[in-house]
């Protein structure tokens, strides 16, 4: 079994079609993307004992919500810790490990729900599932960038689009399964966890076994790489242990963190926000439609912006994200004041494309600055910014809103200050992006060091 997973076994044979790699990556990202749809289990889990309504001993929504926080924290931690291991052992072994963690996490959680032990839910879905999430997320990044040196943004955008799409599959699938398994004595959650765990395990194993890595120095037919650095794009490589201590890494960490904090805060609060701002105008079902629309723009932005970044460059792409984002967040209170639902929805649709685009463009940005040799591991370490944003963003939006309401501000206007604060957050990201510069020569590995790393399997 171990031989099958070895990096040497997955070096592509001549004539291998590189377009087989993105669907393999998508199989994994579509599976782990279910994390974004975890909220569909929230209400049924609060009725696990009472069945028709929450009874004595049932878990609260706050207790269930903690699973998502653990997900996000362990996503960043595992990506940071195991990124270098991934570069050494290759994407197949990492993909298989992710499949075991993600699928196994669901099975452990199923036991937790069946026996009503919350800690098993935190361990299964949260800790182990979170590790699967992190490993699965970064597993194809380095491989795709090496297969598509001519279209790095588009290639990683395709995979990361799958992460957004995973929630679109996971939410209705979970809903259908829970209805199917529901009985007078069960809300159908543990059975759904078992089924989804097995489905995702199989899908992720298919993806992991579909991974192939290109031979060293492979390049697409008809594509000639520049022998010198072009603008922000380097042709050399920085070691991961050096990269994360450099100023551009810190700046890009802040770029991702600010962009994600603003977007994730809004995404998490989208449904109640539109209902509170447009009281009597937007119903709960219309608000659910708004959330659905944001999901569509989220995945559209991932592939759209990442592909555009191949044409205009990563720095200009982030320049647009932040400059346009600041204007749009500042316009939200105006849309609320004039009562324009259409303007409000349009603003957030554009904002969410840039949130998704930020995720999808960052791996290519990293490979431009630090080279492709360790980009998976470097990206893994950068994802701690996502973990931070996953906690900070929603906290910021909820706390500022609550503070405003407590001060007597009408609920419909309670988000105005939040939007200005988020615009300020984007200003920090805007400045950080402007400060990103190519690295001086001393940070790059020499040819001898690079050869040595490649012999060691990196």
């Amino acid at each position: 079994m171990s031989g099958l997973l070895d990096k040497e076994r997955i070096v592509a044979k001549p004539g291998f079609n590189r377009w087989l790699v993105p669907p393999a990556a998508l199989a994994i990202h579509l599976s782990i993307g279910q994390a974004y749809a975890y909220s569909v289990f929230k209400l049924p889990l609060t009725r696990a004992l009472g069945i028709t309504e929450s009874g004595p001993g049932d878990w609260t929504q706050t207790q269930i919500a903690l699973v998502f926080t653990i997900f996000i924290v362990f996503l960043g931690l595992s990506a940071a810790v195991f990124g270098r291991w991934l570069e050494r052992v290759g994407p197949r072994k990492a993909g298989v490990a992710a499949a075991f963690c993600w699928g196994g996490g669901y099975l452990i959680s199923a036991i937790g729900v069946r026996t009503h032990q919350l800690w098993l839910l935190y361990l299964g879905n949260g800790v182990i599932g979170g590790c699967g999430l992190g490993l699965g997320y970064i597993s194809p990044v380095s491989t795709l960038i090496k297969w598509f040196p001519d279209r790095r943004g588009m290639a990683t955008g395709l995979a990361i689009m799958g992460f957004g799409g995973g929630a679109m599959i996971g939410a209705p699938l979970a809903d259908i399964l829970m209805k199917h398994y529901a009985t007078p004595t069960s809300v159908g959650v543990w059975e759904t966890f078992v089924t989804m765990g097995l489905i995702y395990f199989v899908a992720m194993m298919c993806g992991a076994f579909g991974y192939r890595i290109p031979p060293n120095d492979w390049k697409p037919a008809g594509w000639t790489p520049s022998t010198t650095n072009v603008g922000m794009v380097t042709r050399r490589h920085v070691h991961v242990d050096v990269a994360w201590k450099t100023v551009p890494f810190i700046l890009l960490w802040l770029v991702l963190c600010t962009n994600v904090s603003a977007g994730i805060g809004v995404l998490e609060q989208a449904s109640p926000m539109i209902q509170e701002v447009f009281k009597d105008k937007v119903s709960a079902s219309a608000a659910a439609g708004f959330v659905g629309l944001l999901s569509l723009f989220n995945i559209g932005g991932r592939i759209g912006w990442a592909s555009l970044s191949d044409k205009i460059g990563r720095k200009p792409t982030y320049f647009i994200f932040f400059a346009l984002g600041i204007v749009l967040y500042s316009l939200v209170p105006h849309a609320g004041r004039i009562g324009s639902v259409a303007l409000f929805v349009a603003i957030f649709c554009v904002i969410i494309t840039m949130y998704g685009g930020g995720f999808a463009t960052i791996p290519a940005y990293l490979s431009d600055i630090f080279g492709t040799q360790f980009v998976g591991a470097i990206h893994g370490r950068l994802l701690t910014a996502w973990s931070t944003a996953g906690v900070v963003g929603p906290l910021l939006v909820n706390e500022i809103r609550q503070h405003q309401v407590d001060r007597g501000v009408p609920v419909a206007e309670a988000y105005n200050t939040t939007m200005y604060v988020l615009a300020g957050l984007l200003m920090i990201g805007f400045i950080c992006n402007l400060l990103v510069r190519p690295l001086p020569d001393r940070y790059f590995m020499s040819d001898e060091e690079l050869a040595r790393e490649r012999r060691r399997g990196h």
Partner: protein
Amino acid sequence: MQPNEPTGSQPEPGNWGLVALAWIAVGIPLGWGVFMTFKKAVLLFH
């Protein structure tokens, strides 16, 4: 990775049938998810 592996530019790849199959395999669930989300999103305009 083996240091003596073939390097350089490769000939135009084949296996386009397999590529189509792989994309269909991931495209169907993704398309279903997008369709379900679109159905939900339409409620906003009613």
